[in-house]
């Protein structure tokens, strides 16, 4: 790996000289790979060096793109300095750097690094302005333009395997939990458009013992959207010959009174949650956990984004987010051209939104957000169920559907399955069972 000297920087950013950045050390045993290493801000350099690797590994070396990549690198460096300025509350300096970044970086560049910078700079500008305005107590942007965002989510599902990975590995675990059960109840904590469930219904319908009676409790904040999803799923279940009940709950799980969730004796309950940063899907974290304890499901399927918690320091969060989203941008860039409209749609309507939310100034209650749900579940006595070999097979099958499959990686570890791109894990799927159940037997 080359050391980066000033010559590598694009001559156009002449005034800028890299300053020494503060080193922060932190120990975090939740870091992937298990080792509780001392991580300096070199963790940031790690992302930085990944950027260099990313951009150097790009194919197509004609001059124009080479210049783009060089520019991408120097922009990342300026972005990092800006993040440091924000972390020490030097908004004036940050603003100056953001003016430069937002004028130069293009989200349509051939360089993934530059695209990432364009969106991160914009998110940071939003945060700085929000700090200046004395607001910033709302972490998640109010959800308007819902249709566009959900549409982008669907497009993401088509061009990238991450969502399918979440759905199919979870479905596998749920299927196993429903083995030889004839009354089942699925509780989806954030159903969106219910993209996950048709595939499960299909498998349930073709079980040797025949389909179970299926109840579904769906949570989400728009009652209208829930009803629509319910109509779609009911129609689908009917066509498959599954007897189906749909219960919409127009609340976030953290706002739900447990009495709103009817459970019946003898039914097998599965709770599912796919974490994202598009909007605040969960609400009050500890209340959601309490709801889970009360419901005592046979299986909880959880898919988490691998990012530092929102309650941490800004710089830590920034570096983690930069690493995380750079990886996603890179995975998209590996198969889709820089002018691809679907790629732009996902990057603008979905990823930009997430980045905005992840970098936002937190509000009241952010300290109460769980860093890692897996850790919390352990603390509350839930028992982890290791992902089965079948889940691994499912994951592999999905990857085979995608052209850039050699870049996507599946890792098994600690009973979880992690899907990522190259060395970076992005989504981690895990399965849990309620502490109140005495035994959990899994089909072989």
């Amino acid at each position, binding site marked *: 790996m080359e050391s980066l000297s000033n010559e590598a920087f694009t001559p*156009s*950013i002449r005034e800028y000289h890299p300053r020494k950045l503060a080193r922060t050390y932190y120990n975090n045993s939740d870091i992937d790979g298990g080792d509780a290493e001392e991580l300096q801000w070199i963790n940031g350099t790690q992302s930085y060096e990944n950027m260099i690797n990313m951009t150097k590994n790009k194919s197509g070396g004609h001059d124009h793109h080479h210049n783009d990549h060089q520019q991408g690198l120097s922009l990342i460096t300026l972005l990092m300095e800006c993040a440091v300025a924000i972390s020490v509350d030097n908004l004036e300096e940050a603003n100056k750097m953001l003016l*430069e970044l937002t004028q130069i970086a293009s989200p*349509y560049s051939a360089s993934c690094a530059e695209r990432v910078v364009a969106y991160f700079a914009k998110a940071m500008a*939003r945060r700085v*302005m929000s700090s200046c305005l*004395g607001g910033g107590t709302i972490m998640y942007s109010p959800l308007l333009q819902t249709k566009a965002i959900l549409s982008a989510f669907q497009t993401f599902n088509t061009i990238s395997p991450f969502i399918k990975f979440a759905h199919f590995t979870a479905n596998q675990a749920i299927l196993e939990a429903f083995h030889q059960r004839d009354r089942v109840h699925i509780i989806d904590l954030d159903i969106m458009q219910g993209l996950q469930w048709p595939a499960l219904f299909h498998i349930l319908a073709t079980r040797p013992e025949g389909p179970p009676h299926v109840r579904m409790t769906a949570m989400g904040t728009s009652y209208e959207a829930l009803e629509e999803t319910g109509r779609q799923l009911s129609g689908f279940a009917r066509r498959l010959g599954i007897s189906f009940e749909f219960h919409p709950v127009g609340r976030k799980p953290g706002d739900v009174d447990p009495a709103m969730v009817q459970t019946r004796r003898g039914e097998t309950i599965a709770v599912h949650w796919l974490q994202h940063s598009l909007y605040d899907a969960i609400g009050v974290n500890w209340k959601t956990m309490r709801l889970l304890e009360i419901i005592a499901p046979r299986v909880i399927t959880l898919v988490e984004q691998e990012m530092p918690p929102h309650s941490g320091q800004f710089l830590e969060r920034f570096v983690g987010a930069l690493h995380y989203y750079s990886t996603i941008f890179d995975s998209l860039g590996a198969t889709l051209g820089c002018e691809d409209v679907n790629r732009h749609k996902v990057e*603008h*309507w979905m990823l930009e939104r997430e980045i905005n939310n992840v970098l936002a100034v937190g509000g009241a209650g952010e300290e109460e957000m769980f860093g890692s749900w897996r850790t919390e579940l352990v603390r509350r006595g839930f028992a982890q169920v290791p992902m089965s070999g079948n889940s691994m097979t499912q994951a592999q099958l999905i990857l085979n559907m995608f052209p850039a499959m050699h870049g996507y990686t599946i890792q098994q570890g600690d009973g979880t399955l992690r899907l990522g791109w190259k060395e970076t894990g992005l989504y981690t799927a895990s399965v849990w069972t309620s502490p109140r159940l005495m035994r959990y037997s899994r089909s072989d």
Partner: protein
Amino acid sequence: MDITLQAQELHYLTLSQRQYSHEQESMQNPNHHHQQHQITTSQTLESIDPSASGKWAEKLLKECAKAISEKDSGKIHHFLWMLNELASPYGDCDQKLAYYFLQAFFCKATESGERCYKTLISVAEKSHSFESARKVILKFQEVSPWTTFGHVASNGAILEAMDGEAKLHIIDISSTYCTQWPTLLEALATRNDDTPHLRLTVVVTAGTGGSVMKEIGQRMEKFARLMGVPFEFNVVSGFSRLGELKEEDFGVRDDEAVAVNCIGALRKVSVIERSPFIRMLHHLRPKVVTVVEEEADFTSNLDEFMACSEECLRFYSIFFEMLEESFVPTSNERLMLERESSRSILSVLACEGEGGGECERREKGSQWCERLTGDFSPMSFNDDGVDDVKALLRRYRAGWALLPAQGTDATGLYLTWKDEPVVWASAWKPS
């Protein structure tokens, strides 16, 4: 600039906003004022529902401008906050307009317009190369007649006025990097009579690097050689304001016929210097002066922030929509044009005085007519010229049309986009 002073300003702003909220809300619940802000904001946001109606940006921006002109601090913060949540420079038109106007409004409210503008200009200058600037202009001309309209109309008027002259001197005050002149050179070369000698003096407005003009000059000389047109290329630079220019700067010779070509030039002259500047042009004794300007009025409402904002919003809404429909969604060239517009918006709305060198106080065709009449009288475009423009428009997508100026004192041609006049082209001779 004094950084500590700026930081103090920003902190003061933050503090005063918090104080304001505290005064408004009860002190019992420390989180109450945050929630209150959140609730009223959510209500207002929900009442907008962008997925239903299209034009949420216009409504929000107008409300914000109103709050600024009324100096209603609470409302200003409220609307700026909302715009901040919804805006994006990478989204649809509403999101873009919200983003760039938010920047201008914020600078206006915090009186940081000039500082911000200076930074933006210096960043833009550093990152523009000949290649990138050329790419933007050429792509723009390929997908839209916005600039080529003025070129074709002006060339027609110049050729007509200079017919029969042996020595031509064109003084070009524009920012289209000489993309206008190849067609004119071609026309000169293919005329029946002897090819005249052409001198081209380009006035370089601030922001165009020396290396850019050198490249352009070399290309023009090469092209003229190919066309067989005796050609001389000069650059006038080294001044900070167009209003500083004097007749002597152009080196006009006695035996040449002078044409002055002003494409988007007059609006760059600071308002008080416009009349003297026009008089100075008159002293050059030109055969023709071509004036092309964008159809917007940012001058007569200098003291009324709301009126100025509305006109700015009107014009740039049209411009951004036109850009969105003309370019592909992922066009870097379109992004450059939008960023350029954002600097103009900032300079018009948030800069007192003349915003660091170049002000973009546009005026409408009718206003320019008033200024030019006296020293000059209008020349109408001949039929050939008008036909050329019509032929040009046919090469682009539907939506563009030609509209001759109407009314007793009106002169010139308008380019219209979806029936809105957007660019005005005119020709003048000294009276």
